[in-house]
């Protein structure tokens, strides 16, 4: 192949790809953003401004440096007959151009320092919420302030069919959850972060918060939203296969609406507080269990119960799901250390009983026995 032919081929392939790029670019809908989302807190505003400031400074330096270089490239070339000079150092110039960046950096560092200090001041919150990362959902406990005692899980609500391209994707694809975190506007909310299994990160850009949730440790962050609205974020630390699927949705509402939400929430938890000592029927448990399974376990063990060979064991026909109840319950409640099978003790007694019953009687498993919530309660003690 002569080099000419190769060059022509190369450029032709470039032009074949070009329409693709152009199509992509022309499609850039109003959805596509090229900058940080609009900030909703004072800290986030400062972050936004800092980013703009640093970026402009960089752009200016860039234009300066490469303006000079470009001039040189155009003018000082052999092909236009330019003869090389022969200078090779100048202490003065070098001192100057060491000092200037230094000064610029101080100018960048000063405002950044102010924001860091403000950002880290988590004292005197109005409401404290604990956020716990699980593989792969978030748990929230309202610890102090209005709404104290509220506690719920928040899981991605985008249906699997959309992810599998079997259904059209909704507007908030991957950014929607079953239970939003609701907080009042204008109040200082402190979030305590922790995790159950691996490191996750609680992140909502518009609120200016991103904080890793570290198992066994508590870390905190705060925000005070200035506008009502719905703010979306996502887990921002690789936490396993479903890392892309654990969004965070914060709903900032007027204080009155918040109070109403609190009342409603408390009422709901009273209603759903079932008596663990009640005897459930097989069908009730299986129905509930199927839901829990689909929501929590199917991510690994698959809806079919076949698991993913080599990575996640199948539960269909497994020794544990077809063995003594106690072992099965133990596996689910305590998990297995050092494997992806985390402890699911955060599930309610009813849910655990239901999912265990379901697993023992689903797919090819026909144990025929029923695990009652009371047994779970007993196991826990």
């Amino acid at each position: 192949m002569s080099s000419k032919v190769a060059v022509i081929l190369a450029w032709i392939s470039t032009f074949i790809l070009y329409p693709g790029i152009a199509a992509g670019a022309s499609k850039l809908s109003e959805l596509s953003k090229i900058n940080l989302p609009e900030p909703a807190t004072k800290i986030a505003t400062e972050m936004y401004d800092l980013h703009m400031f640093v970026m402009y400074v960089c752009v200016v330096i860039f234009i300066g440096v490469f303006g000079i270089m470009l001039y040189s490239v155009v003018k000082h070339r052999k092909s236009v007959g330019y003869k090389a000079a022969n200078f090779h150092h100048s202490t003065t110039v070098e001192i100057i151009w060491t000092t200037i960046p230094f000064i610029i950096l101080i100018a960048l560092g000063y405002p950044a320092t102010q924001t860091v200090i403000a950002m880290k001041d988590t004292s005197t919150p109005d409401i404290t919420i604990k956020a716990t990362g699980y593989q792969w959902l978030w748990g929230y406990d309202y610890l102090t302030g209005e709404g104290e005692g509220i506690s719920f899980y928040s899981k991605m609500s985008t249906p699997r069919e959309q992810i599998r391209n079997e259904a059209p994707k909704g507007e908030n694809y991957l950014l929607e959850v079953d239970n939003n975190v609701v907080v009042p506007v204008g109040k200082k909310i402190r979030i305590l972060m922790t995790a159950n299994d691996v490191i996750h990160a609680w992140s909502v850009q518009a609120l200016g918060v991103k904080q890793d949730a570290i198992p066994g440790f508590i870390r905190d962050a705060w925000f005070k939203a200035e506008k009502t609205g719905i703010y979306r974020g996502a887990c921002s630390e690789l936490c396993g296969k479903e890392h892309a699927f654990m969004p965070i949705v914060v709903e900032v509402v007027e204080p009155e609406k918040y109070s109403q939400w609190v009342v409603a929430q408390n009422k709901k938890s009273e209603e759903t507080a079932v008596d663990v000592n009640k005897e459930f029927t097989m069908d009730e448990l299986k129905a509930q269990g199927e839901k829990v399974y689909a929501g929590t376990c199917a991510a690994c063990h698959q809806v079919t119960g076949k698991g993913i060979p080599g990575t996640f064991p199948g539960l269909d026909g497994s020794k544990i799901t077809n063995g003594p109840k106690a072992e099965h319950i133990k596996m689910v409640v305590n998990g297995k250390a050092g494997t992806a099978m985390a402890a699911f003790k955060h599930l309610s007694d009813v849910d655990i009983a239901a999912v265990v019953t379901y697993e023992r009687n689903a797919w090819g498993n026909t144990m025929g026995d029923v695990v009652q919530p009371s047994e779970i309660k007993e196991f826990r003690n």
Partner: protein
Amino acid sequence: MAAIHHPGHEHEHHGPPSGIMRWLTTTNHKDIGTLYLWFSFIMFLTGGVMALTIRSELFQPGLQIVEPEFFNQLTTLHGLIMVFGGIMPAFVGFANWQIPMMIGAPDMAFARMNNWSFWLLPPAALLLITSFLVPGGAAAAGWTLYPPLSTQMGMGMDMTIFAVHILGASSIMGSINIVTTILNMRAPGMTMMKMPLFVWTWLITAYLLLAVMPVLAGAVTMLLTDRQFGTNFFNAAGGGDPVMFQHIFWFFGHPEVYIMILPAFGIVSQVIPTFARKPLFGYSSMVYATASIAILSFIVWAHHMFTVGMPVTAQLFFMYATMLIAVPTAVKVFNWTATMWRGSMTFEAPMLFAIGFIFLFTIGGFSGIVLAVVPVDIVLQDTYYVVAHFHYVLVSGSLFAIFAGTYYWLPKWTGNMYDETLAKTHFWLSMIFFNVTFFVQHFLGLAGMPRRVPDYALQFADFNMISSIGAFGFGFSQLLFLYVILKCIRGGAKATDQVWDSADTLEWTLPSPPPYHSFETPPQVSFDEYHVKNVQNVHSK
């Protein structure tokens, strides 16, 4: 590159064995350099195929071609293979070829150990690649291997850990060799401050490697015992801390990124003066700047951890220290510009890649500065902005410098000129597609797209599509590179000894290709660091 072998220059009683045994048992720095370079290129293609798979999955929202678990394995192995298999061995290959020739030595100080440093790499690569085949698949915790996620993995993780051990051993031996060669084997008159900048940058890089590779070995050893022997270094229940791993890892990891850029600075500092036909501006300040970058690199590691929840003072300290690195780097960029200023420039492929390097590396450096500002990093950490940042410094930084160096020295190595037209085409295609691939990732990151995800929200769809198309373009452009190299090895216009009219380091005083043992009698060096012209070539045929 395989054609350097020059039978005329051997002593009868000591010809190298022929065939495969030559390569398996060689103690010759050029042979070993060649092995390193080919190995790294193969690893680059391997890591590149993984990158293309990643980009194909990300072409559209939704899960298309790979499962999330496998996607994470690809990301992890792409990072590990590119860093440890692609970039680092390439620079060691350059070191092997060039350092003895540039300082006027017959070979590396420890020629046998040099062979071992190289031949440790294939077992490590095998461990990494075959880990895809074991139950549970390859490691999927990111190239940073953070626990506790990495404690959850299967056997692939153990294989990765052992691979890292071997790679570490290889790097340590390689660095001991380089340090000793530079300190002990310079030709008479080659004082430290007359050494070519490439040699200087490698000396400093080797020190970085010596200091941090053992620390990485320690970190992954603790990971191994946590996984398999029940220790609790990274487990709160036992009084340990998952974040401790991050501290130890990044104590290695940040110097590591400079390990991947300092030799690149070295190459560019050789290329720019040659094609500007003018001495390097501010030689000594270049040396000091390199040393400053290396020293500072030990106290900035926690800028990768601004979101783990450190005390305010720690965050501020690491922010200031990180920003400070812009100062010595600025010195470098300005010195290169000043070298070009009022030169008499021509723009062959090495020069194009070197200028492309300065241009794009600076963009990457600037996004680094943006990330160094703690409040801004809080919104950008673990988003595609970071991915954009490090591909600007690694691909258009390290990799472009590797391309520049390859074209620059290829005629010396093979004795043939490469095809300039094709090489220039390679440059322009790489330049265009690189930017198409990675510039848009800044936008994705700012808008909030997390990294290490196989699927994303709809607002990110368009830029991802552009980025994926760019990635394929960039990948295929690299096949052109392979073609140029093969063509050059097989033949082409004969290269002169001097090759480039104003190249002035010692290797250009040797024939092209150079004899099997570079300088059997040390040359006399009689020049100062700026007027490197009047070399007395004492090379004996």
